[in-house]
């Protein structure tokens, strides 16, 4: 550990803690999940980066959206995402969540994931290689350091719109809103301390 990183630890221990213990939700959302088992097992060993799969979303703060997202999965993703404690980060894998990818004309997959939940980073590829996943993790570190990975804050602030978009697809959602929708402005005020 060199001086800069000690400094960082002293300055913002919470950020450093979050950075080096990214626990991923155990949720195989799409075909990109096929590269996750190699990543978390011995050949590539994601634990060196502090990434391990967590049993439930309550224990996790990293959500890997691995590939295309069908409507049914999106519902599960939203629920899982809302269950995760803050701070939480999402990473979109591959082409499909960015702009539809292979399934750009499918009636059952969504084309832009960031219309429904915030996404902090995207990895190009179909599928992304394990190496790209690691580099993505290092990028996420930098973003956390610089305070750029603020997807969850955005979700809180603009929850009204996210919920709107979600309900455009599913009709009325069966679970209650995560944040009070009418008092959007109030929430915005106190975001900074939480970040």
């Amino acid at each position, binding site marked *: 550990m060199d001086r800069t990183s000690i400094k960082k630890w002293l300055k913002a221990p919470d950020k450093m803690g979050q950075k080096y213990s990214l626990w991923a939700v155990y949720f195989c959302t799409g075909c990109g999940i096929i590269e996750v088992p190699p990543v978390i097992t*011995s*050949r*590539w*060993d994601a634990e*060196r980066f502090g990434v391990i799969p967590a049993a439930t979303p309550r224990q996790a703060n990293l959500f890997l959206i691995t590939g295309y997202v069908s409507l049914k999965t999106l519902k599960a993703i939203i629920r899982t995402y809302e269950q995760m404690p803050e701070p939480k980060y999402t990473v979109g894998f591959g*082409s499909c969540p*960015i*702009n*539809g*990818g*292979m399934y*750009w004309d499918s009636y059952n997959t969504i084309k*832009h994931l*960031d219309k429904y939940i915030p*996404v*902090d*980073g*995207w*990895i*190009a*590829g*179909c599928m*992304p*290689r*394990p*190496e*790209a996943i*690691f*580099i*993505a993790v*290092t*990028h996420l570190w930098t*973003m956390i350091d610089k305070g*750029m*990975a603020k997807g969850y804050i955005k979700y809180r602030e603009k929850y009204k719109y996210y919920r709107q978009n979600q309900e455009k697809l599913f009709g009325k959602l069966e679970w209650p809103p995560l944040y009070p929708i009418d008092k959007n402005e109030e929430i915005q005020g106190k975001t900074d301390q939480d970040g």
Partner: protein
Amino acid sequence: MKNKLQVKKGSFLKPFKAIKYLFEKPVTLRYPFEQKEPSPRYRGFHLNDWDKCTGCGNCADICPNEAITMVEIPEIKPKPGEKNERPQIDYGRCCFCGLCVDICPPGSLRLSRDYFHIHFDTETFTLLAKDGKTDKEHFLCAEEYSIFQASLTHRKKNNEGFTSDLKYSLFEPERVPMPQVPPEKRKLSFIEQVLGYSDEEAKKEALRCLECKLCEDACPAHLKISDYIKAIYEGRPDESLKKIFEDNPIPAICGRICMAHCEEVCSLGKRGEPVAIRWLKRYASDAIKDYKRTLGLKPARFTGKKVAVIGAGPGGLTVAYFLRLKGHAVTVFDSLPGGGGMMRIGPPLYRLPIESIDKDVNYIASLGVEFKFNITVGKDILFEDIYKKYDAIYLGIGTTVSRSTRVKNSDKAYPALLFLRENKIGKGIKVGREVIVIGGGNVAMDVAREALRLQHIQYPGEKVVTKTVSLEDWDIMPATKEEIEDAKAEGIEFNPGWGPKEIKVEDGEVKGLLCMKVRSVFDEQGRFNPTFYEDKQMFLEGDMVIEAIGQAPDFSFIPKELFDRLEFTPRRKVKVDENGKTSLPKVFAGGDIVNLNLDAVTAIADGKRAAEGIDLYLRAN
């Protein structure tokens, strides 16, 4: 058998064998400190060589995800027959299948072994594909490159991955061979050299076309090439012919002698052989015996206007055809006994049989165009009379006077046009045993090959030889490659890089040609201005010399007071506006007297333009 399959209950202790792996080297790759190179065939982000890319857009068409869009790049000045569009790839769509690589005809699109792009902004995921050659900024050498910054704009140089291979390409690089009469046989007579495709062959050849439409831009007349080829592939030559007739009313002629500018730019020709567009047009016109019934076109109601067309060459025929369809009365004057103009006398019979010309001309005549053959304007009928009698006049007179080398004794040489004309529609000419043809253009090739055939006919079994002398060396010889190859195959001798100095004459008989070595053909400004090494000389023996070094138009039929008002461009071509109209009132012009491109299809394009101009003009008045 049963025993073998009996289930063993296994052991509790044996599994501890696995402990031995504790003492072995771990298999973990300590990435990113220990890096693993992707394989040489890896399919990563795209590379595109902008110099090779033609902008044909096949990659965009084949992409299953519509990830590729062709973006116009204003900075690129496209070469003729290319577009200034380049593929832009959306990595929010791309599935890295590499179909775009396998369809890329010039092989400019490749996939690299870069695959890192991690970003929080989805708009960074589109990329105008370039490679290290054109883009020095974003392609870095190994020292500057770091995988932690790697992205679409921070890439490794020379990191080629999946590249195109002709053997496995999605297009067929080789043409369906055209059945031809072998050289030994064809040089003995004027039998048509190319036999034409059968239905099967035509379909197979039409199947090769990728529909990128580069050819349609290159064709002076902008024929709807990919459409008519598609119709041939679908087994409907009638449909194909209809498409052709929208822009070109003489397919039987054009399908044989067109210079095929389209084939020069065909994207398949970048690495393989271009689609045989000309032969397919010929197939369409040959497959339909009766144009009139197939096309079913009728002239519009008579407008009351009369148009005179002087010259029944390709341009004149086109004007006549289109104006007649628009309902005007058209009269065509020509001094030859039949239609076709230069096509009738120029191309030898083995390339363009008279029947094919007549097929096109007769169809146009059947629409109600009046042809007056064997009438020389200025001699049999005065231009002034025509000028008074008709509402509009089209000059499609072409170049009818052969140029001469003007070397010593050049009056003993035959002009090429006289030679060709006499052979085809005149009394015929007795050729010598050793013929020398001066010139390196297509006319020279025609003359030489025709002379060779005449030699074989007139001196059967004897030793005869035809030689050509041209200023230009092999690389800049103006004749098409195909022609040169055919001529060589028939045994014509070439002497490129030599200029004529003197025709040796003894007792009034030609004995040969004295030549000088050419120093350069063009001067520094690129103008034609040959210089010679006076000391390097060569004597070619021969008893007949034909000059085929170009032709000039003959305007002598136009009265002086009118001719003086006719404006010319600096390069001695008739000046016309965008409607084909000359400076003389109600006179339009096109073809060789207007264009620098001396070929039939340009004349057709001019004719089409003039027909529209004349129609506009007539309707306005």
